[in-house]
């Protein structure tokens, strides 16, 4: 690990998400809005519709400000942030795709200049030339999507690149085309939605109604294109493969994000249809703002979904979220992780935590792991570290050796509540205590009725058999030995036996 680890109190996930969603939202709008502007300008010029032209000029000012200040700089900000949060991933991407970025930069230069001249040129340039610059803007902006799309989709589905290491294999990867169609649709959708919002404030009634309706249709067209893109996405082979399916099933987030995405899309579609196309009368600024909010929600959940199913990787099948390369870490391996860390803090446990867990977890706060380890002990935690990669949540294997597992286990144990569970929850006993013990010491790897279910195994066991299983650790190298006290053990056994009683409730801890 050649880079230092930034120990910020902000969660890496939320920080990244906040900047990325903002940028993605604005930059898609920047493309679709550009197209909307020129096409609408052409129509308005043909009909010599002066109020409409005045509206477009206003829109283009808002547009230039938003895309140049917010769009361009949030793009730069993403780059700065991923360098801080995921320096190894950034290095891999830059080294692999530098000419891709460089090509995108040439489009970026044209795009920025065209946006400025389009805005400043309304009065200065002849209509034909003005529109020509508008088209140049749109072409350059869309072409930068064509390039960036290759790199963004690469992270999710690197495809044949994993074997060949060839630029074009990584670029035109399995999700390239679906994503391009989807994102192009989103661009048009956002362009239309923004135009509906701004048009809702036009004072002249007739212009307002016709502009709102036109922009609404425009948005719906974009929606249709993105639905086609999404359908193409769902048909991509790789995504229906085991590794993705499993992640989607094991985590709550992908399902939740999909639901949000569908709801937001439905609301936006219905909203555009009703408040813009059918009843443009009711389209006023607050309504438009609501539509934009739905769009933001849809966009945010799509990006969340994309990030979530990529777990535990930054580059799928290649590099984990904590910067470890898949082919360089071996679960239960002998190699030292500490020796590979170039920037040390002087505290080994802290270094190990940083480079193994902290890009996804804080002890407390963002995706905290303290609650998962409260009520356990150093022996359990070190043991569980050997099996992080088989837990319900998709996680990379611990990249250090056995000694380092012990160091990190002890380090975490010092920072959580290691009292026995019956001391933490005085008065709780019997099956209820057993449930807590199971939840703390087993459920991460064995959900009841879900991932890694062990109910069948214990089916014909007596209390002594279970005690034996807990005492000798023969199940798996990746499973920690039971290290709770006797009270906890007995409660756990009682709880396990309760599964097979006549009126046992269906339950799932966590």
């Amino acid at each position, binding site marked *: 690990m050649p880079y230092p680890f930034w120990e910020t109190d902000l969660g890496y996930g939320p920080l990244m998400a906040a900047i990325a969603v903002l940028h993605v939202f604005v930059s898609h709008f920047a493309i679709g809005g550009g197209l909307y502007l020129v096409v609408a300008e052409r129509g308005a010029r043909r009909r010599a519709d002066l109020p409409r032209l005045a509206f477009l000029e206003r829109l283009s000012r808002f547009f230039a*400000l938003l895309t*140049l200040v917010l769009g361009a700089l949030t793009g730069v900000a993403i780059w700065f942030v991923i360098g801080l949060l995921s320096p190894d991933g950034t*290095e891999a991407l830059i080294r692999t795709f530098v000419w891709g970025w460089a090509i995108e*930069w040439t489009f970026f230069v044209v795009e920025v*200049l065209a946006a400025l001249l389009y805005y400043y040129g309304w*009065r200065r340039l*002849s209509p034909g030339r003005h529109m020509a*610059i508008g088209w140049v803007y749109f072409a350059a902006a869309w072409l930068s999507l064509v390039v960036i799309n290759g790199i963004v989709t690469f992270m999710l589905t690197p495809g044949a690149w994993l074997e060949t290491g060839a630029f074009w294999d990584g670029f035109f990867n399995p999700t390239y085309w679906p994503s391009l169609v989807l994102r192009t649709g989103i661009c048009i959708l956002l362009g239309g939605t923004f135009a509906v919002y701004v048009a809702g404030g036009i004072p002249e009634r007739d212009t307002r109604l016709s502009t709102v309706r036109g922009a609404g249709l425009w948005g719906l067209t974009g929606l249709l294109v993105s639905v086609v893109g999404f359908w193409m996405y769902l048909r991509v082979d790789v995504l229906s493969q085991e590794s993705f399916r499993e992640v989607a099933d094991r985590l709550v987030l992908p399902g939740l994000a999909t639901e949000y995405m569908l709801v937001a899309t439905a609301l936006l579609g219905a909203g555009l249809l009703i408040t813009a196309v059918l009843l443009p009368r009711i389209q006023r600024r607050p309504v438009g703002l609501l539509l934009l909010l739905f769009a933001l929600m849809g966009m945010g959940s799509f990006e969340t979904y994309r990030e979530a199913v990529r777990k535990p990787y930054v580059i799928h099948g290649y590099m984990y979220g904590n910067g470890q390369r898949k082919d360089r870490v071996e679960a239960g391996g002998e190699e030292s992780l500490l020796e590979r860390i170039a920037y040390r*803090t002087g505290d080994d446990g802290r270094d190990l935590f940083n480079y193994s867990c902290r890009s996804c977890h804080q002890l407390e706060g963002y995706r905290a792991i303290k609650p998962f380890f409260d009520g356990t002990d150093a022996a359990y935690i070190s043991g569980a570290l050997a099996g992080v990669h088989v837990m319900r949540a998709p996680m990379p294997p611990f990249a250090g050796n056995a000694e380092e597992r012990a160091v990190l286990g002890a380090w975490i144990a010092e920072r959580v509540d290691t009292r026995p569970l019956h001391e933490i929850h005085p008065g709780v006993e019997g099956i209820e205590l057993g449930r807590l013990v199971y939840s703390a010491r087993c459920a991460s790897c064995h959900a009841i009725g879900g991932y890694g279910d062990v109910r069948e195994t214990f089916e014909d066991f007596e209390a002594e058999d279970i005690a034996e299983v807990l005492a000798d650790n023969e199940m798996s190298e990746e499973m920690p030995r039971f290290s709770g006290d006797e009270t906890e053990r007995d409660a756990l056994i009682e709880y396990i036996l309760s599964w097979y009683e006549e009126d046992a409730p269906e339950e799932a801890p966590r």
Partner: protein
Amino acid sequence: MIVLALPDYDALPAPLWLLTVLHVLTLSLHFAAMGCLFGGLLTLFGARLPGGLEHPCAKRLVTLFPSLMAATVTLGVAPLLFAQLVYGRVLYSAAIVSGWFWLGIPIMAMLAYACLYAAAFTKQGVGRVRLWLLLALAGLVYVSLTYSSVFSLAERPDAQKTYYEGDASGLVWHPDVTAWIMRWLHMLGGTLTIGGFFFGVLGRRDEAARHKGQFFFLVGTGAAFLTGMVYLFTLGDLLKPFMKSAGIYSLTFGIVAALIAVPLYLKQRLWLSGLSLGLGLLGMVHARHVVRDLRLEGHLDPAAMTVDPQWGLFALFAVCLLVALAAVAWMLRLFFRADAAGA
């Protein structure tokens, strides 16, 4: 179980010289745009033109600032990309050690940008314009100081490790002030040179503005020269190897070209003077580049990196760049040839 070997990303995708040329070229363009913006702002505040911000030349500059900012940002992306490609290991580690300050760069740039727009568009009088401009200036000062701090830290990997051990929270500002202050002041001098130049060009038909521009151009040149000399002597042990490197030639060339620009400028040979100044800038940027390599000796040796050229992609980039330049030239021509009333 070790999975099958996956592709590596150690190799540079083009020979080092090519990457260096691209880096130095684009960085010089970035500095030129930044000089017009930042130096222009400084000159504007220092100039005290008759009528202040109501002076036509001042007004013109204020409306130009947002576009200059756009140019600065856009032209800054490419050199950072090429620097990251080769020097990412030291650059990003320095950025992480100063994480919060680094993160502040795009945020402050965004605010400065927004303030420049506000100054250009506000209808609330000169007081407001001045306020917005001052805020933008503060943002730019922050960005420039942070870059000096982080990039000087990037050249000192050992120091990075020490500071990181002391504080891993990203709140480290390069504490060795002597390592970056002269460097920053020198940049400031250079910026003022370009800003004064640009100001004088804008105001070439206005006596007062022209003189102010010339004045700040000269002050900037003098300041850059002095601080540059001091900076050179703070190189200490590096001075000797620098004197034997290609850097001394580019530096000499840079100084001579910059000095030639002065009489040309005073004689209002603006194109020639600008060209000379630009060449001077190129020389200095290359010298700066050489110093970085010298300082990193023993830590990071770009010349030792493996190279696996992707010529096809480079050709595609070159074609795109040419098309982009053609598009830029065409659009600018359309725009500036058009008469203001609409053709």
